[in-house]
């Protein structure tokens, strides 16, 4: 559906292809923008590469593996301790002393490809590097090898290297072949990681049945949490809630998890799927391959969090668990209500713009409502149709949506809709501030965790601090403009 003239962004007059990425929401007949397609070169996109999706988002949180980047040092450096995907697994820094940062963020390991490798191939180098890394970084649960543009273009046969190394070290060695150029956005990398990890994990389980859970080890309420990356320790609140419900969490894909637990995930009774953009793939694969169903979940906000607990209790069907779910929900709401009421009072009627990868837009639409705020417009870097369907369903009628926004569109939208706050990532937030718009980091948070009932207070506080920081009154002092 064409959007009314007043929503046509001026900055795109000369690149009208962009207009098909803009829609107004409709809850009855969802308007889906053109999405998950190539970016226009030179349009100042905010998108990253497939490798970033594979290594940064999905693989990065894995806690106990050596993650070796088969590339020049650059690609590896950029992935080194950047995202706040935290973990409690720490390597030893010396006898009796653990490292200062969790294992997944502590080091950058790379083959450091050189010109001669580009000409003659880098497979041999990769093999040596894996074996050396194994001796230099002892105790790891496995090795993950990532390809990037350079190794992807050289065309090294990394799978046979992985097989050899796996035999040598006796732990899983998986290859994630998702070079930067191989997809339209990070999203391709999520997909690749899911499928490739799943296939190799299944193969490994078949070859090493001892890594699977034995029948007698399995419990009736075993669940795995899928698509949860432990930003700023969200898991601090997520895990205990399910445990209080009576479930046992046998693995998290992938936030802070160990390889041995990742391999056990197919042995769960139920998967609880949080990030439905990056991890529906593996949930479907496990559902088909192992007949483990999954429930879709959002861990943000009161209503959505309550729904997950109820859905899980309903799945297991025990009356006791259902009752417990209600108790937990009732109690948690009480625990946070003074704080949430405080913020609701101060945030009511404020207007917020949202820009995230994709799912968090619809995860957070309800949260904003629960805080009494209005969504002025929303943007997604790599959402697909299903994300936009959900966004349409949850939005106020006629909310402006932009797929794969570029820098200029962000500026124009801030100017046009004048939100009181913009939820956005690190690259964009400094631009917003130059325009006088406060921000909250929607990827790595300001001072999280933001998940679950208790985390929502942190989220509300950061939004409140964003809007009410004294600095903004100086910005608008007419004398100094």
């Amino acid at each position: 559906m064409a959007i009314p003239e007043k929503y046509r962004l001026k900055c795109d007059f000369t690149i009208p292809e962009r207009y098909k990425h803009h829609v107004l929401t409709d809850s009855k007949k969802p308007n889906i923008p053109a999405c998950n397609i190539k970016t226009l070169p030179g349009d100042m996109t905010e998108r990253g590469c497939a490798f970033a999706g594979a290594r940064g988002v999905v693989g990065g949180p894995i806690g106990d593996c050596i993650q070796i980047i088969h590339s020049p040092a650059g690609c590896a450096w950029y992935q080194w301790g950047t995202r706040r995907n935290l973990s409690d697994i720490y390597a030893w820094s010396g006898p009796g002393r653990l490292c200062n940062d969790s294992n997944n963020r502590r080091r950058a390991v790379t083959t450091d490809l050189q010109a001669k490798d580009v000409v003659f191939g880098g497979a041999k180098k990769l093999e040596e590097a894996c074996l050396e890394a194994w001796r230099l970084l002892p105790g790891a649960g496995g090795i993950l090898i990532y390809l990037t543009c350079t190794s992807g273009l050289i065309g090294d046969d990394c799978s046979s290297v992985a097989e050899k190394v796996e035999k040598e070290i006796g732990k899983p060695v998986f290859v994630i072949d998702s070079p930067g150029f191989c997809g339209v956005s990070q999203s391709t990398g999520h997909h690749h990681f899911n499928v490739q990890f799943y296939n190799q994990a299944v193969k490994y389980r078949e070859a090493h049945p001892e890594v699977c859970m034995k029948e007698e080890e399995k419990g009736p309420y075993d669940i795995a949490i899928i698509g949860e990356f432990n930003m700023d320790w969200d898991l601090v609140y997520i895990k205990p809630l399910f445990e209080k419900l009576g479930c046992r969490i046998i693995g998290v894909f992938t936030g802070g998890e160990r390889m041995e637990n990742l391999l056990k995930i197919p042995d769960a009774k139920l998967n609880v799927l949080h990030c439905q953009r990056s991890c529906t793939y593996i949930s479907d694969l496990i559902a088909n391959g192992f007949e483990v169903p999954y429930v879709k979940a959002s861990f943000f906000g009161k209503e959505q969090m309550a729904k997950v607990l109820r859905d899980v209790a309903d799945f297991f069907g025990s009356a006791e668990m259902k009752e417990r779910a209600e108790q937990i929900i009732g109690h948690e709401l009480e625990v946070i209500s003074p704080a949430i009421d405080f913020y609701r009072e101060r945030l009511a009627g404020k207007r917020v713009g949202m820009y995230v990868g994709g799912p968090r837009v619809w995860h957070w639409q309800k949260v904003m409502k629960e805080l009494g705020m209005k969504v002025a417009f929303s943007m997604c870097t790599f959402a697909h149709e299903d994300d936009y369907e959900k966004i349409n369903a949850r939005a106020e009628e006629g909310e402006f949506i932009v797929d794969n926004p570029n820098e200029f569109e962000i500026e124009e939208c801030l100017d046009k809709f004048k939100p009181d706050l913009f939820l956005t990532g690190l690259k964009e937030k400094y631009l917003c501030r130059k325009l006088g718009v406060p921000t909250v980091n929607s990827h790595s948070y300001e001072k999280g965790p933001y998940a679950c009932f208790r985390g929502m207070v942190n989220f509300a506080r950061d939004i409140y601090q964003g809007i009410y920081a004294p600095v903004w009154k100086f910005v608008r002092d007419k004398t100094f403009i």
Partner: protein
Amino acid sequence: MTTPLKLNGRLTIKDLNALPEIPIEGITYDQMYIEKQPICPEYIAPDPNIIPSSKRTVVIDPGRICMPFGAMWASVGVHGCIPFVQGAQGCTTYPRYTFSRIFREPVSIATASFQEDTAVFGGRKNLIEGLRNLIIRYHPEVIAIVTVCSSEIIGDDMEGYLEEAQDALEEELGPDVLEETQFVIIHTPSFEGSHVEGYNRAAKAFLKTMARRTTPNNKVNIIPGMITPGDIREIKHILRLMDIEGNILFDISGTLDCPLRLPQAMPYYPKGGTKAEDMKDMGNSMMTFALCPDEGGAGARYLEKRFKIPAAIGPVPLGIHNTDIFIKDLAEATGRPIADEIKDERGILIDAMADTFHYTMGIRVAIYGDPDIAAAATRFCCELGMEPVLIGSGTESKQFVKDVWAAAHEYNLKPTILNGSDMFEWEDYLKKDKIDLILGNSKAANVSKEADVPLVRIGFPIYDRVGYQRRAYVGYRGGEYLLDLIVNTILDSKFPDDRVHQ
């Protein structure tokens, strides 16, 4: 509820979830106690035989990033310039992320958005379309076309494609459009060198494209290298005191440290940066100073060869000796006397050194960073009577080794020098030695905590503290600031409070 003392009042996961009420302020990460799980039950020592970089293939914790990043850094310092990166999106998004992390500023960089088909057919279409889309919306004064690993491997003919792109632009928008934007092509395959070399190549590429000889001026050229906006301001201050006019290349002081002032024009362009006309004028200057030999030396050498402009290449004017060289060279090249204010500033630094040497002398220091800064910091530590015992450069450099040895020789020291090694090797030396202080960037923060050796932050990158990019380390006043940092860190870590009252 009681919390055990060993947790410093922090809440365990269990306590957190048992709290009967969440306070208005919420509970943040720093208030939580997360019990660390060791990766394996017992410490296992890394294989000592392959700890030296030279004995292995794998690189762990590289102290260098990719070549295009250096070229982007340089280009971002040009007024009205947007780099256009000929590669897949990551090679642009990651550097932008890195810039923003360090400078806390927006940085506009365009990408050619390579896809799978580009890998097969090459990036011709991406460049032609991409430049069009960029120019028609942003009207940049300069576009720096930066190649990356992928475009170099594919073998994109950048010069040829650019011509095609210009023809297409002229056809669509008329001949005036070609006047509007100037282009500089910088080839930066990362598998041939690091960010240091990227900046170096950018210096040469920009000057080759822009600098012209018209009428000689009385100016000096400054090629700063990857120093901070604060450093560049300090250089300008020195030139002002000496009454010398300068053309400063890649002036990030006006692009990567900008005021928040409304209203802001759209699209956002920072006010500052080196103007095209100033780059053109660099062919007329009396002398070129490349402050960092490995980052910009190539530009100075180019001007020397092409326009016979004498070049002074390094050392970074940090500390007494190095700044003295810079000031003397400036005075000599321009015939200006050394300003009295400068002598005062030097005097103040020396006064501070005289006041503090009891704290600094004998302090064993480990240094890691980019070659030019690491070498200069080494010498300054020597001047303070400290003992640099372990000096590492992430990027290999002959000049670095030469400069460090020269200082070591003068001060009678025999440091371990790691040239182009990774931080893993440096860290191992450090943890095995008795070191009092580290001078390094944010990447040394973990090592500092693990080895219980305090860290003074300097160099690239610093993203885990604020303000460092606004400060100057160069010049006498920069030395003063660095000295204060060093001494205060020593006082914090080495001296009991009752010992520092007089």
